[in-house]
């Protein structure tokens, strides 16, 4: 009998099969992922989770009899009151409790399974890319770091590369023919043996001489010499900052309905996921505003109702203050997404424009403005609705490409709009993918 411990064998034997499965069911899974994402919290969206796809797409057909075809025999345990010849009324669907279960999973309409975080995001964000950042001030994206870069002959003791040093020492010792320890020991033993046997001096003398020579040689050639020393060399490099902050600005005045907030939430969610793919650490700041702005947590941001007027510049000012205090641009990439129904106090528009131009846009990597409309105001295609005050304020920025602007009225539009904003350009697709 053998007992074999297989626990340390590399796992993931099914990984390749799993990838094949996902590839096969890709369109189905993708749809499921995108639809399913609406139910998650913003920062939970990228966790692994269950998806359900229609079983039809990954069916493995077999010849088998239809479940309701022909006469079915059942032998069942646990008879309590029946005698031969009794009849039992059919229960709807159940068939008197005798319906035998089909093959596992075969009879089900839906196939449920768990996607890992990576798989989820791959499917969710396929083909998307951050907008071309090189046009912006990339210098602010840098942070200093060190990178291993070979060996050097000098350096600080902590960076001593022991293995490399010893290898050098060994080759030097071989080259210089430094006597090995066993050689010396053998010779000493030989001399001792001869001495004990009382061998004559003329026999011992050459041995002694050789020993003296070897010992001298071994003293002269050190085991490790300063020339052997090697140090790991570290090279300073500048790295892009691996953290980002995402400002979510939203108008919560009375005119914003639940529907509008839901639209905004979905957009924020997508943006958050997208940023987490690019940056190790993503912070979210929620700023809601009426006629005054306030930083709140996610729960309050989406769910608590406020009353008041609408002064958009208050939110921009709050954002600028927080960015100054907590997110200096040399350490953070700043992204902002603003959602609003487009209302603003007319006298605030110029303040908004100048704030945006002078304070906000210079520190932001990306500023998106999402105008959310009520469901019932959906206009038939071709009809251009009235432009809101805020839209008109932002329009110049949108035209020059510094603010990404979209208008959304239906939940289904969110994902297409998001994709549109971040679509990988055909031209630089290769560069972005690399």
């Amino acid at each position, binding site marked *: *009998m*053998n*007992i*074999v*411990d*297989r*626990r340390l*064998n590399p*796992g*993931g*034997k*099914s990984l*390749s*099969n*799993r*990838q*094949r*499965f*996902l590839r096969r069911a890709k369109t189905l899974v993708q749809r499921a992922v995108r639809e399913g994402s609406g139910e998650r919290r913003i920062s939970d969206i990228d966790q692994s989770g*269950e998806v359900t796809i229609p079983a039809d797409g*990954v*069916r*493995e*057909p*077999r*010849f*088998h*009899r*239809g*479940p309701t*075809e*022909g*006469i*079915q*025999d*059942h*032998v*069942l*345990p*646990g*008879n*309590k009151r*029946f*005698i*031969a*010849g009794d*009849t*039992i009324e*059919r229960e709807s669907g159940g*068939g*008197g*409790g*005798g319906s*035998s279960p089909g093959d*596992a*999973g075969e009879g089900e309409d839906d*196939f*449920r*399974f*768990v996607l890992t975080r990576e798989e989820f995001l791959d499917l969710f964000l396929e083909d998307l890319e951050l907008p071309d950042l090189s046009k912006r001030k990339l210098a602010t994206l840098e942070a200093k770091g060190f990178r291993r870069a070979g060996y050097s002959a000098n350096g600080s003791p902590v960076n001593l590369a022991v293995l490399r040093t010893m290898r050098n020492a060994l080759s030097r010792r071989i080259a210089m023919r430094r006597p090995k320890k066993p050689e010396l020991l053998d010779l000493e033993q030989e001399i001792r043996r001869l001495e004990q046997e009382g061998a004559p001096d003329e026999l011992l003398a050459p041995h002694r001489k050789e020993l003296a020579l070897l010992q001298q040689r071994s003293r002269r050639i050190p085991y490790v010499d300063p020339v052997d020393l090697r140090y790991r060399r570290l090279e300073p490099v500048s790295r892009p900052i691996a953290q980002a902050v995402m400002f979510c600005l939203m108008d919560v005045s009375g005119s914003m309905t639940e529907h509008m907030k839901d639209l905004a939430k979905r957009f924020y969610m997508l943006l958050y996921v997208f940023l987490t793919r690019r940056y190790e650490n993503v912070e979210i700041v929620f700023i809601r505003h009426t006629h005054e702005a306030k930083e709140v947590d996610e729960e309050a941001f989406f769910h608590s109702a406020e009353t008041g007027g609408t002064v958009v510049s208050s939110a921009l000012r709050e954002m600028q203050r927080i960015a100054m205090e907590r997110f200096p641009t040399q350490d953070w990439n700043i992204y902002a997404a603003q959602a609003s129904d487009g209302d603003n106090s007319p006298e605030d528009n110029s303040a908004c424009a100048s704030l945006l131009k002078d304070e906000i846009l210079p520190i932001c990597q990306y500023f998106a403005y999402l105008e959310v409309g009520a469901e019932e105001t959906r206009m038939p295609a071709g009809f251009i609705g009235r432009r809101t005050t805020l839209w008109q304020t932002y329009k110049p920025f949108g035209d020059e490409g510094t603010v990404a602007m979209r208008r959304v009225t239906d939940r289904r539009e969110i994902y297409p709009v998001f994709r549109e904003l971040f679509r990988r350009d055909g031209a630089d697709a290769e560069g972005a993918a690399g």
Partner: protein
Amino acid sequence: MSQPAREGLLFQGKDWDFGTLQRSYDAIEAIARTDLGLDTYPNQIEVITTEQMLDAYASTGMPLFYKHWSFGKHFAFHEAVYRRGLMGLAYEIVINSSPCISYIMEENTAAMQTLVMAHAAFGHNHFFKNNYLFREWTDAEGILDYLDFAKSYITRCEERYGEAAVERVLDAAHALMSHSVHRYPRKRRPDLRSEERREAERHRHREETYNDLWRTVPSSTTASGRTISEERRRALLELPQENLLYFLEKSAPRLQPWQREILRIVRQIAQYFYPQRQTKVMNEGCATYCHYQILTHLHERGQIDDGAFLEFLTSHTNVIRQPEFDDPSYGGINPYALGFGMMQDIERICTRPTGEDREWFPDIAGRGDAMAVLRDIWTNYRDESFIAQFLSPHLIRQWRLFHLVDDPDAPELRVEAIHDERGYRHVRRVLSRQYDIAWQDPDIQVTDVDLAGDRRLIVHHHVVNGGLLAEADARQVLQHLADLWGYDVVLKEVDTSTGILLKEHSLQARAVFS
């Protein structure tokens, strides 16, 4: 680390190490060989993790298997069910190979490991080595080598012809797999070891000779294709043929040699699993009966303490739990429960028979040596014959079995027989038929092919009791069949008793394999 065991005890507490496993194994082996007289393949116990167990689930328990998306699907399914906590993982998986490999999970307690070794490494192992179906249809020595060959062959095909092309062949082959076993013994015992060599030989042979079918293709110079008699043609094509993949491998006109080899691989694997489907009750019953006997002996001899024995009993009773039909958790008859129940009942008949038993089982009642009787049964029966022969009135009463008929034409369900004098034989016959694969699987055969005309393949489904095929699935499978065949396929569903054609499906081949 296990604590030093008290005098005579194999282990204490729930922790185990490899020393514990070895000690337990030795103690189990002593009982299995001397008290139970089991005869097994050499054992190999492999300790694995949960994730590895899920991996094993996905590839039908085999340690190595070729790659296909459907295994990924099963993996995803099991993983989701497991994570939701709906399903515990099996304590073990055992492979019919020599040496017999048993996977045991690292999470198991020492008592569970003992149970699992008794169950898998001795119960199942004995059954694999001795049951006539396994001896007839499987080659325990060769299976792992064969799977290795199959895996590398399919990988080579993928490298050469592309993953998509290979996947298409495998999809089609998998769809036909359930109807691709030989059901009647052949002259030669399976010898999977030489498969690899034979694949090369076949390849050479194919290059040197030509397919018989080509000779029958009508040509302008010879009329031999036309003059061949119908009888002769059917004989040449070995028709009627119920092994669909075998037929395609040998006779499909348009397949490449590598595609035929893949069909062969899938067919061989289907054949390897064929006995398992027919002996579920007996196999699990045998293993359960053995572990019950072995653990009881260990406890009687003071080699496991009361705590471990109680833990064992808890698992054991969970395994053999049989909910009644009106219980919400009823999901069919539990093969562990039925097998174990019947084997215990046989033991009772051998040692403490009643008058009824003597009348029903004159051969074994009062024989005394229950183990000898059981070993003989394990060797010579499959589920269907086992139940037909050995389900006793005593057990039918104990389980209160009854037969319910669901006739879609009748307004109500009818109780045909119950556990009474008139019903015993009836219930037993119906139950045994439910374990008869030939009765349960639709009987589908290739009956003819119009070689002189449009080469349409004609397939019959012999319908029993009006049980037609589920149409959507059947059409998908037929599509695969047509694709592999390369020409049209028509499936006729014919009532066996009356010979009336009930339904006909015909499908055209898509050019996916050319």
